[in-house]
């Protein structure tokens, strides 16, 4: 019983971490007024790049760094389309997403099905040995804590700093932001690049810690769940993180139920994260006022400076 509980709680934090990284990135992008739907492809590219680089160099740090850079590079394509060529953001997100999925397969081609030694969990001596909470709170891999720190940092930056104010201003009213001298395009470009890097790190956490292997299609819709999480969390970082933990728990439940031999079709459990996403999305969106109040006003609208 204690073992199962430890498995569920500790596993939830680990399973949620890829989602948290990608979702914090997407939150900043959306706060600046841009809807980036290419997260799935960005995460896949990060997952493959991180895995290959970590395998070749033997360094997880190198893996995460390379993943962040690779996905950031890919997000530049999205930035060019939406900011430079004023493309429809939904279509541009789909295009870059598909490109990213293809690129990930190409990058990971030689490593299909290969495994890697997962990054080590921290060991705080007796703290990590405490029953249940020891493994959950004091025995995770370092990136789990970096993920939590990123939630705190993003909350602080968006709400308490001048930079956050500028990002939000650009997302609410780019025209007004421009007229008081904020560089709308530059802010959005940096937000997209940041979002790309974070999605890459999230993807790399999947392959370097959570699974830990590379296989085509391994991101399995997580990129889309990330986009949904930002809506669930009504564009607030702590709530988004809470949503991510919920999904971590749901995906863990699948393994748990199979392990216990319950007579539930495994396919139903695999479909559960998507079904739950749909249900929560409907419940949260139902109150149009909440969405209207929190959703960045210019989200999805191309911006032209009009010289």
């Amino acid at each position, binding site marked *: 019983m204690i073992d199962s509980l430890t498995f569920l709680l500790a596993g939830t934090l680990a399973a949620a971490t890829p989602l948290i990284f990608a979702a914090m990135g997407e939150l900043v992008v959306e706060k600046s007024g841009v809807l980036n739907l290419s997260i799935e492809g960005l995460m896949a590219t990060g997952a493959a790049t991180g895995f290959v680089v970590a395998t070749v160099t033997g360094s997880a740090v190198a893996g995460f760094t390379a993943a962040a850079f690779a996905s950031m590079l890919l997000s530049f394509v999205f930035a060019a*389309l939406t900011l430079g060529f004023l493309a*429809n953001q939904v279509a541009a997100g789909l295009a870059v997403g598909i490109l*990213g999925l293809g690129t990930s397969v190409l990058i990971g081609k030689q490593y299909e099905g290969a495994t890697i030694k997962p990054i080590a969990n921290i060991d705080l001596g007796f703290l990590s040995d405490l029953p249940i909470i020891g493994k959950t709170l004091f025995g995770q891999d370092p990136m789990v804590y970096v993920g939590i720190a990123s939630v705190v940092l993003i909350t602080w930056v968006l709400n308490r700093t001048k930079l956050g104010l500028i990002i939000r201003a650009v997302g609410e009213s780019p025209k007004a932001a421009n007229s008081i001298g904020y560089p709308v395009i530059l802010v959005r470009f940096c937000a997209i690049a940041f979002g790309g890097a974070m999605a890459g790190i999230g993807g790399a956490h999947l392959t370097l810690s959570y699974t830990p292997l590379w296989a085509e299609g391994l991101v399995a819709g997580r990129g889309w769940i990330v986009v949904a999480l930002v809506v669930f969390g009504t564009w607030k970082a702590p709530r988004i993180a809470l949503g991510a933990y919920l999904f971590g728990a749901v995906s863990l439940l699948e393994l748990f139920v199979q392990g216990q031999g319950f007579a539930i079709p495994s*396919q139903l459990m695999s*479909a559960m994260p998507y079904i739950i*996403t749909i249900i929560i999305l*409907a419940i949260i969106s139902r109150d149009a006022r909440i969405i209207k109040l929190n959703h960045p006003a210019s989200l999805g609208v191309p911006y032209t400076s009009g010289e």
Partner: protein
Amino acid sequence: MKPFQLVPRTQQSLAAQLLVPVVSIILTLVAGSVMFMLLGKSPPAAFYAFFIEPLTTRYGIGEVLLKMGPLLLIAQGLAIGFRAQVWNIGAEGQLLLGAIVSGAIALQFETSDSAWLLPSMVVGGTLAGAAWAAIAAWLRTSFNANEILVTFMLSSVALQLLYYLVSGPLRDPMGMSFPQSAMFGDAALFEPLVSGTRVNTSLYLALAVTIVAWIFVQRSIPGYKLLVSGLAPQAARYAGFSENRAVWLGLLIGGAAAGMAGVGEVAGPLGLLQRNISPGYGFAAIIVAFLGGLHPIGILFAAFFMALIYVGGDMSLVSVGLPNASTTIFQGMLLVFYLACYLFVNYRLQRRSKKQLISASSGREGSTQ
């Protein structure tokens, strides 16, 4: 000051609309050649294997037409929704539902030789696709839930449903526990169209839907209302066109077309239900719809080209050893270049007159003095 500026077009340019897909295809081919080179393949050989070889044999042309059918069908349906800014990206799931329901009908009447079997499969599959999309329409109109996310999530759910059915209730009892159904009877299959190829009469369905789509888009009042709600939502509201109606119509049409495409797959080249039914037609059709300029005739050409990419990808995998990811990358590049070029449908480049340039630069000098 830059010597050129972008000026919004005041009237539509047909030349720009026709040139954009052509230029984006050329750019994709150029970028593809660079990719071939990076992979250590000779671009001319890879290029030949990818884009020419499929069209040199009767079998190859048959394969292209075979894959063109579902792409054409789905893209026609999706384009109608896209024009109204209704984003159905879950056609893959709607296709699977069409396949599942028509497959279940075929298996239920396994021994039937009735001429009504295939038509009822087509109707059943089409309705099933529409019903799957209707979930998203209902959640959007009653709960304000974003249809992009819901349609995508539903396609993942549909895939699991298929996995469950072919490994459980619909599995072939004689099939040595392979996750697939029994073979359908002959009455449940489309007739071959040309001997020596796999292309079948379901292609007629896709062509018929193309004509219907053209009439709907160009000549009907509901089609016009949908277009207006996409181009000018405010105006549509003033004119009393309901947004909810547009969502319902856009999603139902897209779902129905995708469901019909699913019937074409199981009652065509597959002849049974199995785990792999579609190589991502539902997603590729999104690109087809855009590349075709969301226009029924443009989509016809775009579907042919996308089918060629599919077949070329398969063939070059064998003949020159190109990685199977090439198809996906080509698809992504195609849409990226299309969206970039599309800027020139709405804007034109205008050379600034000498006078403007001089006055701008002297203005700057003036301010620094």
